[in-house]
């Protein structure tokens, strides 16, 4: 991080009265007030189409809220964008077809105006299980492999804020479990603030410190569940009673969220 950077190493995120109505009057987010602690991983779970990805895009500064404000490390999203201290792993891997696996990962360094770092790129390729595919173009990769490239790309710039939009959606179960164990080892020591959108309750519990359950559209936060499991999460934690209890609590929260229209703030 540069000495004159405005965004702290582990920026907190503050949403004040943030709402989003798309042209045509589709209300996606009801006015939302929430603070995400810096250095924590927060998971957003909720039914399909409820507005989780929209909230992520608002935090990333890719969309402007209809009302309210978002502050990242005390500054609007444009500041963290300007400092290239943000990385997003999109739902669609968004790989450039004319670049190889290595080229796609290196593109993030270029866009962030950081010097080339072949060793770090190779390490990440290995971490996401794509050794031997560094010079392969996306067309020759499976959906899961492409998604892993996108994850590696989001990590390579060592962002201060990492936004993951269903990053493991197309990844097979075994790789998904492996990635869920390995990836936090990268962002935890750096205390990267991470926001994760996922449909998988066990993935949310495995990766996050806090889980926000959103209602069907227009989204409201209907459950705010802390995950009190040790960090770093040891291998096999998913078979412990504490993990299973957390999964059950979030699942119950999701079920209540589907039925509920009353936001947490009003309870």
């Amino acid at each position, binding site marked *: 991080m540069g000495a004159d950077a405005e965004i702290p190493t582990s920026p907190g995120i503050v949403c004040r009265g943030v709402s989003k109505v798309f042209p045509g009057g589709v209300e996606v987010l009801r006015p939302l007030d929430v603070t995400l602690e810096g250095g924590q991983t927060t998971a957003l779970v909720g039914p399909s189409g409820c507005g989780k990805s929209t909230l992520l*895009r608002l935090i990333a500064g890719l969309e402007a809220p209809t009302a309210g404000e978002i502050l990242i490390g005390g500054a609007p999203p444009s500041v963290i964008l300007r400092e290239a201290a943000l990385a997003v792993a999109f739902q669609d891997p968004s790989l450039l077809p004319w670049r190889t696996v290595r080229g796609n990962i290196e593109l993030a360094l270029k866009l962030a105006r950081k010097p080339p770092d072949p060793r770090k790129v190779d390490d990440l390729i290995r971490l996401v299980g794509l050794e031997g595919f560094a010079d392969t173009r996306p067309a020759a990769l499976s959906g899961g492999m492409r998604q892993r490239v996108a994850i590696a790309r989001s990590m390579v710039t060592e962002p201060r804020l990492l936004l993951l939009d269903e990053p493991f959606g197309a990844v097979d179960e075994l790789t998904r479990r492996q990635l869920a164990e390995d990836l936090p080892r990268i962002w935890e020591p750096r205390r990267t603030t991470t926001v994760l959108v996922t449909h998988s309750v066990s993935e949310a519990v495995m990766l996050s410190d806090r889980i926000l359950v959103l209602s069907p559209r227009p989204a409201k936060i209907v459950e705010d569940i802390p995950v009190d499991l040790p960090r770093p999460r040891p291998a096999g934690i998913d078979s412990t009673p504490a993990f299973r209890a957390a999964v059950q609590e979030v699942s119950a929260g999701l079920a209540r969220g589907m039925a509920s229209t009353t936001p947490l703030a009003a309870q």
Partner: protein
Amino acid sequence: MSAAADHGVAPTTARRFTGLLGVVSLVVGWELAARALEGAFILAAPSDVAVWIVQNAGLLGRAFRVTLGNAAAGFVAGNLAAVMLAALALAWPRGERVIAGLALLIFCLPLVATGPILRVLYGPGPGPQITLAALAVYYTTFVPLLVGLRAAPSSWFDLVRSYGRGAMAELVHIRAAAALPYLFAGLQIAAPAAFLGAMVGEFTGAERGMGVLTIRATRALDVDAIWALATVAAAASMAVYAAVGVIARAVLTEPPPVILSPPPMPRTGGARGRAIVLTTAAVLGFALLLWWGAMELFDLNRFFAKRPDDVWAALVTAPDAAETRATLAQALRETSVYLLPGFAAGLALGTGMAVALTLLPAIGAGATAVAVALRSVPIVTTAPLVVLLLGRGAVGTIVLVAVMVFFPTFVACLHGLRQAPGQVIDVLDSYAAGPIARLWHVQLPAMLPAFFAAARMSVPASVLAVTVVEWLATGRGIGSLMALSASLSDYDMLWSSVVIVALLSVAGYAGVGAVERRVLSVYAAEQMTR
């Protein structure tokens, strides 16, 4: 295996062999037909063509070099103009429709009339040939480039923006690379079009070049020379088309797109109606301003460089305006008798052949390779051959227009039929549906966007074909009227013809577009709301 080969860009050995077999069969069939028709003075055998080329190698070589030089200069100028226009449209998105409309209007200017006008404006020298070559190429590069610069999913732009980068990084990292296949597709079509433009320019009073030799041979009814010149023009066009293709395969990771037409205006209802009216008004306003401004800027003599008000006077307020209008109307009626059947026949034949080859896939692969290669032949430069073969009457003209429309329609429809979604075909196959049911329910609807794209782009092409044949051969219709007006220095009539033909071409293009929107709103609704 190279990445290009991974994507099926490189032709396979089998396709090369099929192509070679096609060429050999064509030459043998041609030789046999010529021998059978010996003495009819319409068809020269390949051996006669070869003899003429050898005997006139010096003359032909000099003419070829001149035409190639003019075509190359026009190719560079036209493509630079296309890149600049596309960049302007990208930088000024709200003006894109107006820029595209102006580009279409200029592309629809009849070369048969702009040639003589440019000759007067430039005087002797290669100016008109180069300008006509540039005019013939810029639109076919501009359109795919414009599409290509936007041919990236929005998530790619989100990626760039998520690193705090702006429009310049989007251009460098996304748009430029995404547009490259489209640029090459445009350049590939532009290469033979430049040759065509240069030759039409030479038809209009140049001193040297292949066009000059063609005019002389046509007047002298030198059958061997006409065939030799058309063969050399076709071979040169196919060679440059192939050369651009080779470069494209070396550079690209995916094949160039086949459809070279802008998508229809993606709006609906009253908003679209208002947009069309506003765009049309803006295009006409800018066109008049550019026309008048250019004439005044270069202080061109009003005798031959007519201004908008001169044409208005000639058509509306002058004492002989009614007579001028009647002459134009009569010529347009004569032209439409050739143009409309030829256009319809070309569309029907192109579509029918594509459908037939889809139903008979065994011969489809080879035929596609030959058709794509033949698309590079500048049909208009073979006009004298068609006249030789079919005479100066209606049949020859209609056939030439139909051939002009046939190739792009055939290639586009064949491509469109292959765009049918495989999963939907699988569903039909799971019900043991036959090829006809598959064609009717899936492939024909999937083909419609490609069909209409080809039909729209065929409008100015067929106007070019009919006016060239009328000028060179039939002595009837608007093409002949423009040639006659040029030779009689009747510049009021010439400029009036240019305006009317260009406007009618644009109207025809828009008319096809209106039908397209209506049909695609049912059969390709996703494309219409993009």
